C-alpha cells in the first residue's frame, strides 16, 4: 500500500513539474510584448527597451526559466504587472473569494440537484423526471454570463431586491478581519452580523447563477447512477424482503449511487472554480478566474503561471480527497487498498 501511495505521489510531483515547464513555455509563446504593453501609450523604442531590461525579459529564455524555478522554490511566484502585487499575495487574496462563491453555488446546486435526481430516477418517466430534464437542459444551455446578467437585470435593476452587483460587499462596509478569507465565516468570527448579512446578500445572485449552471451534471449523474443501482439485484432483494421504500432508496440505493456523484461533484467544483470568470466579471467579483484572464490579456506572465500552478495543485489535492472519500463511502475501496 505504501508503495502504491509513493507511486501516486511520484506521478503527482511529475505532473506538477510538467505543468511548470509547460506554462512557462506557453506564456513565452503568447503573442504580445509585455515590455511594450507596460511602457505605456506614449513610449519610445528606447523606453520599451528600458522596461524590458528592468523586467529581465532581455535575458535568454533558459536563464529566465532557471530564475523562475529558483524563485518558485522560495515560494516566490513573481510580481504581477497588472496589479503591481506579488502574485502569491494576489492569489491568496482572491482564491477565497472564488472558493466562497463556488462553495455557495455548489451547495445550492447540491441541495436542489440531488433530491431532484433521486426523484427523477425513482419516478422514471413521470412528470418529475421530465421536469428535471427540462431544468437541467435549460441550466446548462444558458451561458453563465447570460444567466448572470438576466438575474442582475431582474432582481437588481427591475425589482431592486438584490443589492448592487459591485463585488463582495457594499461600499459602506469594510471587509471583516482576515481569518479564512471567507467573508461569511470571518464576519461570524468577528461577530459582526451586519457584515455577514451584507456579504450574504452580495453572494445570492452570483451563487444562484453558478448553481443554475451546475444543476445539469449533478442531476443527470444522480439520476443515471440511481437508475443503475435501483435495477440491481441487492435492491430487488431488499424490496423482496419487505423493507420500506424509504429505507431501500435512502439507505441502500442512494448510498451506493453516491460514488459517481461524488466524482462528478469534484469535477464540477474544480471546473467552476477556474471557469467562473464570466460570473466574476458580471458581478465584479474579485476572484481568481478574472485575475488570470486580465493577466492573460496584458501578456502578464507571472500571474498566469501562478494561476495554472495553483489550479494544478488544487486539482491534485481534490482528486486525492475524493479518493479518500470513496473509502469512507464504499468499504470495498478500503478493502482493495
Amino acid at each position: 500500500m505504501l508503495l502504491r501511495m509513493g507511486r501516486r505521489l511520484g506521478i503527482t510531483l511529475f505532473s506538477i513539474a510538467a505543468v511548470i515547464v509547460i506554462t512557462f513555455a506557453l506564456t513565452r509563446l503568447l503573442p504580445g510584448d509585455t515590455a511594450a504593453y507596460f511602457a505605456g501609450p506614449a513610449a519610445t523604442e528606447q523606453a520599451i527597451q528600458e522596461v524590458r531590461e528592468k523586467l529581465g525579459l532581455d535575458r535568454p529564455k533558459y536563464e529566465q526559466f532557471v530564475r523562475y524555478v529558483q524563485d518558485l522554490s522560495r515560494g516566490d511566484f513573481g510580481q504581477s504587472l497588472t496589479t503591481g502585487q506579488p502574485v502569491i499575495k494576489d492569489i491568496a487574496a482572491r482564491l477565497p473569494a472564488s472558493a466562497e462563491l463556488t462553495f455557495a453555488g455548489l451547495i445550492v446546486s447540491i441541495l436542489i440537484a440531488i433530491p431532484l435526481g433521486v426523484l427523477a430516477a425513482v419516478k422514471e418517466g413521470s412528470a418529475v423526471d421530465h421536469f428535471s430534464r427540462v431544468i437541467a437542459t435549460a441550466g446548462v444551455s444558458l451561458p453563465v454570463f447570460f444567466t448572470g446578467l438576466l438575474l442582475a437585470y431582474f432582481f437588481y435593476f427591475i425589482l431592486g431586491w438584490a443589492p448592487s452587483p459591485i463585488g463582495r460587499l457594499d461600499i459602506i462596509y469594510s471587509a471583516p478581519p482576515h481569518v479564512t478569507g471567507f467573508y461569511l465565516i470571518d464576519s461570524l468570527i468577528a461577530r459582526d452580523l451586519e457584515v455577514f448579512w451584507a456579504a450574504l446578500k452580495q453572494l445570492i445572485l452570483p451563487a444562484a447563477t453558478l448553481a443554475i449552471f451546475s444543476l445539469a451534471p449533478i442531476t443527470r449523474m444522480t439520476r443515471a447512477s440511481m437508475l443503475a443501482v435501483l435495477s440491481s439485484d441487492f435492491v430487488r432483494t431488499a424490496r423482496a424482503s419487505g423493507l420500506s421504500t424509504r429505507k431501500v432508496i435512502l439507505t441502500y440505493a442512494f448510498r451506493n449511487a453516491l460514488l459517481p456523484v461524488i466524482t462528478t461533484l469534484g469535477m464540477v467544483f474544480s471546473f467552476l472554480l477556474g471557469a467562473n470568470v464570466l460570473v466574476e466579471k458580471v458581478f465584479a467579483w474579485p476572484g481568481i478566474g478574472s485575475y488570470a484572464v486580465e493577466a492573460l490579456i496584458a501578456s502578464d506572465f507571472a500571474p498566469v503561471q501562478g494561476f495554472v500552478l495553483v489550479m494544478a495543485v488544487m486539482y491534485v489535492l481534490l482528486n486525492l480527497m475524493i479518493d479518500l472519500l470513496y473509502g469512507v463511502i464504499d468499504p470495498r475501496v478500503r478493502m482493495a487498498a
Partner: protein
Amino acid sequence: MKRRDFLKSAGALAASTALTAPAVFSPAKAQSRAETLLIVSEGGPNNIDIHGVGTNVPGYEVAWNCYSRLISHEMKKLPNGVEYYDKDKFKPELAEDMKIGDMSATFKLRKDATFHDGTKITAKDVKWSLDRAVTVGGFPTFQMRAGSLEKPEQFVIVDDHTLRVDFLRKDRMTIPDLAVVVPVVMHSELIKKNADEKDPWGLSYTKQNIAGGGPYNVEKWTPGTEVIFARNENYKLGPLPKTKRIVWRIVPSAGNRRALLERGDADISYELPNKDFVELKQSGKLNIVSTPFSNGVQYLGMNVTKPPFDNVKVRQAVAYAVPYQKIMDAVLYGLGGKTFGAPANKQTEVAWPQAHKYNSDITKAKKLMEEAGYKDGFETTLSFDLNFAGVNEPTCVLIQESLAQIGIKTTINKVPGANWRTELNKKVMPLYVNVFSGWLDYPEYFFFWCYHGANSIFNTMSYQSKEMDANIIAARDAAAINDKTTYEKAVKGFVDQAFADVPRIPLYQPYSNVAMQKNVSGYQYWFHRRLDYRNLAKG
C-alpha cells in the same frame, strides 16, 4: 441596549432572524454613504506611482489626486457649461509665485505646505522628485524630455523655499510640462528610508504607498477591486476638497455600470459604450458630459513605404472612400468631433485638430484609383486594436464595405491589446485604425510625434518629408521666441501638407464621456481625461 449591539451579542439564533430582517442597517453607515462618492469604472490602477514601471492610465488618476505639483492650470467654462482646463493660464499649486526669466524659471514655495504625514515640503523634496522624473527612465523621463527637462542639473535649490529650473533651450513646452501628471512632488526622506541600493528611487515603496501631499490620500487599495481615498484634511495648496471619502470600484461589466447609475447606486462612471451614453442622455435621469479629447484624433493610417499606399493618389482615393458620416452616426452615435468635409473655400486654421476637405465620394475615389493605375483594385489587411474593439470593430467594418466599392478588398485583422504596441512599432501594417492624443495641446507637439521624419513610434505611417519636418521645427522654434507670423505660416504649412499628402486620414475627434448623478457637481475636464476629485461634490 441598542439593536445592533443586541444582534451582535446574540448567537446563531439571531443570525436566522437577521436573515429575515433586511433592515439591519446602522444610521452611522447611512451617514457615511452620504459623504462618500462612488465611482465605477472598467479598470483600476496597477501602480500608484506615476514614475513606476508600466503604470497604467487608471494609475495616473491616483497620482493626479494624491500628489501635488509646482503649478497647475486655471479653469475656464466651455459654452456648454463644462469646466475645462485653460492650457494658457497657470495657477500656483505648491509654488506661490513663479518668475519666468529668459533661460530659467524661479519658483517660490508655500511655507505652510506639508506632506500627508505632516512633514514640511521644502525645495529639497521638489528637486529630488524632479531629479527622479528625469532619471528614472521609461514613460516619466520621456514625458519630461518633451518639455526639454532632461538633466538633474537643471533643478537648482536656491534656498529652503526657492527652486530654480534652468532651461536647456528655449522651448514653450517647458512650463506646461511642469503642470502635467508626471512632475509630482514626493516626500524624499520617507522614500529614501524605504529605498535600497538596487532601487535608489524607492520605486517598490511608492508603487504601493503614496508619499506626497496632494488633496487626497489612498486609504486602502485592493488591486483589481477598489481604491478608497480619504480627503487630506490639512490640504493647504487650494480650497479643502469637497468630498470626504471617494470609493472607486472596478466593475468590469458595462451593462452593470449602467444599471448602477440608473438605479442611483453609483455616482459617476465613464468608459461606457457610446450607445449607452446617448440613451442615458435622452432619458434625462443623469448628467452626461461629452468633451472632445484635446489634441486627439482617431485616424486611418497607411504605410507609405510600400505599394500601394506609397502612391499619394491611392491614399487620396481611400480618403474619398471613407464613410465618415456613417461612422459618426452608427459607431459614435454622434458623440465625436467632425474632422471631415470642410467647405472647399475654407481657410486653413492655426489649430489642431481641424476638418479636412475630403468627403465620401465614391466616383472621385474610383477616378483616383484609375489614375494611380489600380483600376482593378488590390487586396490588403485592415488592422485594429482589440482593446478598443467597441469603437474600432464597427468602424473597420464600415471602412471595409466602402473600400470594396472602389476595388480594395480588405481582410480585417484584430490585434490583441497586448500586441498592438509591438505591431505599431514594427511599422509594417499596411492599413490600420488608431488614435493619438497629446497631453500638451499644441499643433506642433502633435505633428512632431505623428508626422516628423524622426520617425517616432506615433509616426505609424513612416512618413518622411523634408518640407514637413522643416515646418514642424520652424513652428517649434517660432513658438519659443513668440514669433507669431512665422509660427502661423509654419502651422498652416504642415497642416496643408498633411491633408494633401494624407499619409493618415483623420476620421473624427474622440469624445471623453462621463455620466453622473444629477446631484453630483464639480466635474472638470483635464488634458489627462481622468477625474479630478477636488471639486466633486454630492447633494
